[in-house]
């Protein structure tokens, strides 16, 4: 068999690279989509198993706690539960009142959501994307574009749904944007003018950040009294009134008509263990996910 010359040995990798590049450009999109899904699903069991092992580790760590500590935690939980039960009763009354007013005014009912709680399998916070993989997917009826929330407010939106897992684009992901409203310090009602929020640059060792665009010029930020951002409910993806973050800085935009700002997101977003997916009862109404 002929031995290749040194020059051909050196050029062969680059020729192969060129051939692969051209061939890859010619591969049909449907084949690429299938390959992507297949490779994701092939890796999912390992990631899910690792997350289950972490859960088991946490369980055994909790088992080492003294009984007194567990009893005290149980009492605290019972107290919180009693408070929540009262809240649920009040919420039921408010919902009934809301439905009656909607009927009186002949307004369409607000979008309804089914709640799916899911454990976080994997956090992937890169400089170019910020996402979570959660342990529920098509098997629980999760839909692409569904909003994801936690106790501290908005987490993000479902970007991809697979068989048993879903990928959630975080609020801090640069591709995520939504309409928000600003609540001034001390105010109980938000400013009705919607503002555009987008995920932004996320420096290392700090909380995730976002940016605010097209904010009215009369919104001001003073240290110690930061305006809060809530979801506006516009667009029909997120219910209105969910916390998004705090505005830490505002400056006039280049056109002078509006302001741009910096938003500090909840630091707990970086350490989430469990989230809630709000699966719309009318999934076709959702706009496309980022």
């Amino acid at each position, binding site marked *: 068999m002929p031995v290749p010359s040194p020059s051909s*040995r050196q050029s062969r990798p680059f020729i192969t690279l060129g051939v692969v590049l051209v061939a890859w450009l010619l591969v049909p999109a449907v084949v690429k989509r299938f390959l992507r899904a297949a490779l994701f699903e092939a890796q999912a069991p390992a990631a899910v198993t690792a997350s289950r092992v972490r859960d088991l580790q946490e369980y055994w760590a909790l088992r080492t706690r003294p009984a007194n500590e567990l009893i005290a935690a149980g009492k605290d939980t019972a107290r919180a539960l009693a408070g929540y039960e009262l809240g649920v009763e009040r919420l039921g009354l408010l919902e009934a009142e809301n439905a009656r007013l909607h009927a009186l005014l002949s307004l369409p009912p607000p979008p309804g959501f089914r709640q799916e709680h899911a454990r976080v399998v994997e956090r*992937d916070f890169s400089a170019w994307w910020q996402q979570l993989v959660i342990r529920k997917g098509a098997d629980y009826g999760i839909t692409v574009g569904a909003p994801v929330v936690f106790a501290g407010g908005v987490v993000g939106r479902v970007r991809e749904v697979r068989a048993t897992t879903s990928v959630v684009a975080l609020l801090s992901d640069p*591709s995520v944007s939504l309409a928000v409203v600003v609540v001034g310090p001390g105010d109980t009602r938000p400013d009705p003018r919607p503002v555009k929020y987008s995920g932004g640059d996320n420096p290392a060792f700090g909380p995730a950040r976002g940016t605010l665009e097209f904010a009215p010029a009369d919104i001001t930020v003073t240290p110690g009294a930061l305006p809060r951002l809530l979801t506006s409910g516009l667009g029909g993806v997120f219910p209105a009134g969910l916390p998004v973050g705090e505005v830490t800085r505002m400056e006039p935009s280049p056109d002078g008509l509006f302001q741009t700002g910096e938003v500090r997101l909840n630091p707990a977003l*970086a350490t989430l263990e469990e989230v809630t997916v709000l699966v719309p009862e009318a999934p076709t109404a959702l706009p496309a996910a980022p």
Partner: protein
Amino acid sequence: MSHASRQTLALLLGNALLVFLAAQADHALAGWQLRLWLGGLLLAPAALLASHRAGAVAVFVTGLALDARAPVPFGTHALVLLAAHAALFAVRDRLARDTPALRVAAALMANLVALAAFGLIMAAAGPARPGAGRLLPELLISQAAVALCATWCFALQERLCALFGARPGLELP
């Protein structure tokens, strides 16, 4: 099974383990807004130990596996890693490939080049414009991880090749 196929399988197995461990590390580092880029570890053993065909196939498939998990055009990681693999493979005959220090240096250089290429592609294609406050710490921690793990990674790939009956370093015509 041919020698090249056995080499490919061994390299893929090693890379799969590395990708899994890196994902677990990223999960733990997310609280600090950090993520490891270990492309150099995935391609350096393939470029320095295996035949061209086996190494290129293993690196390309590993890149596709990374693409499947990331919101990037499918094939981005694969082509970047394949390009870095081609560059390292082209110069490997001039390197003392058995020297551990040189292997570490090659992995570090490959990691830096692959990360720079990936960053340029992402900056051109996506909406994200990460600043130096993000990129610099991430680059430093990634290079540190590559420097720490490179020797283990080469040893692992050599053992796996031996396990699969594929002699590392054997270049087939």
